[in-house]
């Protein structure tokens, strides 16, 4: 039983970070109907910004997290300006934004490789990695920070989307962009805002994953970006609550598959799950009608 609850905690910690990544994908999909393949790249750069703020500027982990989020938002702005906005001006197929954002992700990854080198880096051990005994399970300081931050971010996001005016505008734009525009919402601004918000969340997830895996490298964006995509499919495209739940499901599924056997297949778990889900429920586990996968 102890092993089980311990793995559950590990899975929740990992899953919370996955959920934060996937929310970034799903927000952008909601307003633009595109899959932002550059999200993994921004996630990776966010992790590096957080790392550099801690090691070079000597900041604490929370200021560094906020710094990384600001950096992520700036990147998101540039992404929207250079890779997405030009495509909106003309009628293009859904292939164009996919390829354009793939281009951005390759660019970010290769720049990171050039600037920071291929070696794996890790956060200095400022936060205690000592395990605290909570009876049924043990939890480390890093895990508390990671899980807590992710949950706080998700709660804040949910509050913002549901209670504030700008959140309402984001939801309206994602429901139907033309109608939102007719109702006086500046949809261009909302799109920029959403991409920046999603990128800030991606960067935050980068710091969290960097902390809990204690490994930051240029290729982490691609691997983690793919898992975010898996969660996106699981939760249903454009569905924020679905992405949250999907993130936790994937995190727990991965940790348990490692704990009970197939550790080398860890990276295949995510996509094994989505192929299974696509067989059973192609519109995603939590999808509402309308935004689903059926034509």
């Amino acid at each position: 039983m102890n092993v089980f609850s311990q793995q559950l905690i590990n899975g929740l910690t990992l899953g919370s970070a996955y959920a934060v990544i996937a929310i970034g994908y799903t927000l952008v999909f909601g307003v633009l109907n595109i899959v932002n393949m550059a999200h993994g790249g921004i996630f990776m750069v966010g992790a590096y910004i957080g790392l550099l703020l801690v090691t070079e500027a000597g900041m604490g982990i929370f200021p560094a997290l906020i710094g990384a989020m600001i950096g992520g938002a700036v990147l998101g702005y540039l992404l929207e300006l250079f890779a997405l906005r030009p495509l909106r001006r003309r009628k293009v197929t859904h292939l164009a934004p996919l390829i354009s954002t793939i281009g951005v992700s390759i660019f970010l990854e290769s720049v990171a490789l050039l600037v920071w080198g291929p070696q794996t880096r890790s956060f200095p051990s400022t936060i205690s990695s000592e395990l605290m005994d909570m009876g049924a399970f043990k939890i480390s300081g890093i895990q508390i920070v990671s899980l807590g931050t992710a949950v706080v971010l998700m709660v804040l996001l949910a509050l913002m989307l549901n209670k504030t005016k700008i959140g309402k505008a984001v939801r309206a734009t994602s429901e139907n962009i033309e109608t939102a525009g007719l109702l006086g919402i500046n949809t261009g601004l909302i799109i920029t805002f959403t991409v920046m918000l999603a990128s800030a969340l991606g960067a935050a997830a980068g710091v969290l994953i960097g902390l809990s895996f204690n490994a930051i490298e240029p290729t982490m964006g691609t691997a983690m970006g793919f898992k975010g995509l898996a969660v996106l499919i699981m939760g249903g495209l454009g569905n924020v609550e679905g992405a949250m739940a999907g993130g936790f499901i994937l995190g727990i599924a991965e940790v348990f598959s490692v704990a009970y056997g197939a550790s080398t297949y860890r990276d295949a778990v995510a996509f094994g799950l989505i192929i299974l889900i696509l067989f059973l429920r192609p519109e995603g586990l939590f999808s509402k009608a309308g935004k689903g996968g059926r034509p």
Partner: protein
Amino acid sequence: MEELLNGYFLQVFVFICINIILALTIYMTLCTGLVSLGNAGFMSFGAYTSAILAMKLDVPMPLSILCGGIVAAAVALIIGIPTIRLRGLYLAIATLGFGEVVRVIALNMKITNGALGLSGIPSMASSLSDYASDLGLIDALGLDSQTAGQLLMCIALLILVVLIFFFWYKLEHSRVGRAFAAIKADEYAASLSGINVVYYKMMAFLFSAFFAGVAGALYAHATYFISPTDFTWHKVVDMLLYTVFGGSNVMWGPLLGATVLTIVPESLRAMSEYRDIIYGLMLVALMGFRPDGILSYDAVKYIARRLKKSPKGGN
């Protein structure tokens, strides 16, 4: 002539041919508006199947390459049944996931030799040169057997590329091709006019997977060594780039894209660390300025008209 026949140039030519086939496989699915990102997975199925058949069971090479393609198509059928009905982006992500799963499986299986990969795969060049020397061709040409083998491989690949190109060209200008075009233009309207959308999409998907498998098998026999790192996400990006750069709406596009983008990095060896940065920027710029690639439908028509005109002008 002697200089052109050196091993390096011949090797580059071999890669151009393989890359053209890969670019065409992306084009084939795009013909029906499908974005499939799993072609590296199909490629690795083809490569491993052909390599294992040729190494362990001594299957003759043409047959093993064909088997590679068939296995890839069979896998595509299994993957396609649930996913082909999905809307564009779902299919892109599902096939991308498929590619990753295949890579992880290849990393963990014994028969694929895990991360170390398979080495000592029978070489296409040497088997062709053996065949030719049996016929007494090599002495007639006055070349050493290694160069002759490579040259023969180039010729064989060129013939194959021409055949595949011609096959798809014919298909595109038949009833099937018109159905593809109708589906690409408007899936809903196509289904209302009695076109079986799923059937034709599946057909394009299977052809694409088959040729990706063949290309993978050719790659295995051309390089004698394959490992899971040969079939990563970056391979898919390369293929996409060939097609999208050249022009994703006309058949000449992938041809041009694969040729140019195989030669340019070779000639810019000194800048190889910046290659991916340039590729990334190029993709973004292309989509912003010319989302249909260098060769669009209008550009091809224009060139064709000019080509028709110029002989007349000469007279």
